[in-house]
């Protein structure tokens, strides 16, 4: 049974690259363009892991994680946050919200696969 990963990012190109890489590694992928979209799409199906950007329109990554933590069906989904190194303060905020895994942009697709497999090895 292959596992499902959701990538939430307002940049379509990043969604694409991540999506291609993950599918190549045997995961199913759902794409969402911001936190709100992500929340809408995560309900009603089993998502094993979420990759989310921090800076996004409508609902940013941190608020997104906070919302996920409120819903029983989604509160235990591991989240990988995408960050730039200069966002130390955001990182603390995110960690307080429960996001433990961080991947620094820019990243190679292999790095992303490695990060995902640490959390949900298929």
């Amino acid at each position, binding site marked *: 049974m292959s596992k499902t990963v959701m990538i939430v990012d307002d940049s379509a190109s990043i969604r694409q690259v991540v999506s291609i890489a993950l599918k190549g590694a045997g995961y199913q992928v759902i794409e969402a363009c911001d936190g709100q979209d992500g929340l809408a799409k995560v309900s009603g199906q*089993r998502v094993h892991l979420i990759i989310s950007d921090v800076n996004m329109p409508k609902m940013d990554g941190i608020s997104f994680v906070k919302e996920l933590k409120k819903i*029983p*069906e989604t509160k*235990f989904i591991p989240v990988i946050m995408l960050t730039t190194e200069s966002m130390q303060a955001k990182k603390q905020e995110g960690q307080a919200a429960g996001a433990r895994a961080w991947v620094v942009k820019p990243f190679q697709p292999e790095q992303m696969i490695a990060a995902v497999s640490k959390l949900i090895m298929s």
Partner: protein
Amino acid sequence: MNIRFDYDPENNRLSLDGEMTIYTAAELKGRLMQRLHESETLAIDLSRVGEIDSSGVQLLLLMFRDAATKNKCIRIVASSPAFDEVVFLCSLQEAFGMNGIEAEEEA
């Protein structure tokens, strides 16, 4: 994200159907421990456990420890591939009394 409990009082057999994960851990703890308190002997059938993570494993370990201190008889009588994989990964055969008695009643 569900777990179903079936108890067969005649054979003291508790069957679990679903996932033993962090999502079901809170519910599992209550049900499993209550079952254990009400039983002197307990046979656990895990053959329909599709997924198990460390929260599930530590609950089972708690049950086995509790049973041992109260001199109760507890056994895992059937297991699923998911459970077997975890037992192998963490070398838990001994802890769950599974040395050579795997799925003896599976029939």
